[in-house]
């Protein structure tokens, strides 16, 4: 890593922090297709992975990239891809495939203005719902969202760890401004936990890649290691073969969602600041949380009881409904038309007033705009 200083502070860009975090987490395979504003990630990894015996390949499109990532993950490597909105849309079918077949992989989406080709070089938080629901059909997914370069490094490692622990695709959503901003990162982080893939301990004839114990995450054998099994995107039985039987499908679905929903304490990370006495609570994520934090400080200086909540795990969305017991107003700040606003309204359920401060013109929401909303 060019910006890296061993064992101390480094100045690096958000996209470089993704690459550094991925390598620290044990990345063995990276496939992608060029797209702005994610390109620095592949620039670094195309240089670094071959040096470490890992694989970098530039595929013919984003569909092929995520497909190759899934294939490599089945080969036993920690695998990832990176893209932006248009490419992220192309990946959705195979993200759903990875979710249904429970194959670990990490997808980085450095968002840009959208819809369509949008504004390739400007920030947007428009893919929040696409990250949650882009693939067809109900499916579990984990989405992480950093607001600084340092958090980017940390959450990238966390993305791989959660992906391996829960056998699920994990999406790292990034803001263009964080991806291209240079900040200080301490490297390596003290006591970084790296989760290895859980491998079967039973002989091949006793291995069920989709064992249907409650909320379990069955170990995943790598191809070529003597466990010959089948992977299909069709609904499958515990051996991985297609089934249409409700008595086989229902236990599988229960486990598929249960493995995430019964482990929210491990998966969901949400920071709260000054909410104990807050009458107004700001909810913001990514780069927008930095504006919100600035606005909160200015408001506190004026003597107003303002607090904030910053979800670093965006999906599953944190259970923040308890803040409505105390706060009279919740303001959700986003660079989109209110994609999380609706989620907050659903959780708060009328117990507090919920407002949005939104921009989708490629400019950041400023602290001043948030202060104006406080004055309403």
């Amino acid at each position, binding site marked *: 890593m060019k910006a890296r200083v061993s064992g101390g502070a480094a100045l690096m860009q958000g996209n470089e922090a993704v690459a550094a975090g991925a390598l620290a987490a044990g990345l063995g395979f990276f496939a992608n297709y060029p797209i702005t504003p994610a390109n620095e990630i592949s620039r670094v990894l195309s240089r*670094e992975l071959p040096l470490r015996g890992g694989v970098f390949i530039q595929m013919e499109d984003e569909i092929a990239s995520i497909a190759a990532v899934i*294939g490599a993950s089945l*080969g*036993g*490597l920690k695998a990832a891809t990176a893209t932006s909105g248009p490419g992220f849309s192309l990946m959705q079918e195979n993200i759903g*495939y990875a979710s249904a077949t429970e194959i670990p992989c990490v997808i980085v989406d450095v968002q840009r203005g959208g819809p369509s080709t949008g504004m390739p070089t400007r920030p947007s938080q428009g893919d929040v719902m696409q990250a949650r629901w882009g693939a067809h059909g109900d499916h579990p997914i984990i989405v992480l969202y950093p607001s600084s370069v340092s958090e980017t490094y940390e959450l990238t490692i966390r993305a791989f760890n959660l992906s391996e622990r829960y056998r699920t695709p994990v999406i790292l959503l990034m803001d263009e401004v964080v991806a291209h901003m240079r900040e200080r990162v301490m490297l390596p982080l003290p006591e970084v936990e790296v989760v290895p893939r859980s491998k079967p301990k039973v002989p091949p004839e006793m291995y069920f890649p989709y064992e249907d114990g409650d909320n379990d995450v069955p170990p995943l054998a*790598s*191809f*070529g290691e003597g466990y010959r099994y089948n*992977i299909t995107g069709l609904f499958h039985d515990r051996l991985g073969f297609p089934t249409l039987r409700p008595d086989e499908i229902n236990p599988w679905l229960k486990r598929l969602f249960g493995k995430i929903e019964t482990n929210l304490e491990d998966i969901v990370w949400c920071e709260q600041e000054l909410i104990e006495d807050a009458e107004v609570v700001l909810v913001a994520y990514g780069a927008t949380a930095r504006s919100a934090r600035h606005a909160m400080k200015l408001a506190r200086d004026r003597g107003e009881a303002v607090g904030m909540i910053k979800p670093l795990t965006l999906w599953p969305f944190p259970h923040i409904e308890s803040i409505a017991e105390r706060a009279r107003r919740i303001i959700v700040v986003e660079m989109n038309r209110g994609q999380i606003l609706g989620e907050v309204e659903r959780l708060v359920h009328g117990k507090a007033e919920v407002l949005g401060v939104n921009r989708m013109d490629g400019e950041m929401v400023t602290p001043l705009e948030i202060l104006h909303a406080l004055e309403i």
Partner: protein
Amino acid sequence: MDAIDERKYLRLNRFPTIWCPGCGIGIVLGAIIRAVARLGLDKDEVAMVSGIGCSSRMVGYVDFNTIHATHGRALAFATGLKLARPEMRVIVVMGDGDALAIGGNHFIQAARRNIDLTAIVINNSIYGMTGGQYAPTTPRGATATTAPYGNLEPPFDIPALAASAGAPFVARSTVYHAIELDRFIERGLRKKGFSVIEVLSDCPVFYGALNEMGSAVDMLRWYRDNTISVREAGKGEGKLVRGVLVDRDLPEYTEGYQRLVESLRGKGEG
């Protein structure tokens, strides 16, 4: 030649297959297994990757490491697997629509990249599983469910496409020419690089019925009478040419990548 016990390579508890009576895909399955057996490959080191469609259901019936991937993407899944496990033999089974319509870009890119995969394209000239729609391999003028007035489009010449995209081994056979097919698949598996074997295969239920080609046996006879070996190619005007059409040595991708990694060894981690 020693007798081969095909059952050793099958997941017999998954039978019967979903294929219609008279379908040619089972003949291709047998040919692949006999080729694997003749090469003496260990089942653990063989992977079979497929996409979506009738022929792609083959992976469920073979006792290898198997991936039933998404429609058109089998080659891209296989590319990732091969790079993660270069020691594995990766066989990719696709239908004509899977390989050349929705997966057409992956097909030419894999050929250009020359990655060591054995791509078997089972060409029945139609989309069978979805009910007989016209494909990029349906002959001009043929009838399909979605071409009730005759197909306006010309078909791909799969071997010519594969060859011009850079594949080092390209062959074509049919399910009528079963012994030849065994041999071509075996040669494709032996070849280091991207090998393409197109297999013309009958779909009596849709293509055959819609085009009044008779029974499955009649369709096999059609393959016998309307194709010609490349050795006699000059003698049969208008006939489809069978044979090993390309066999050349070109740099293979996974070997190239491994050489790159070797050459960088000791250069340190940046």
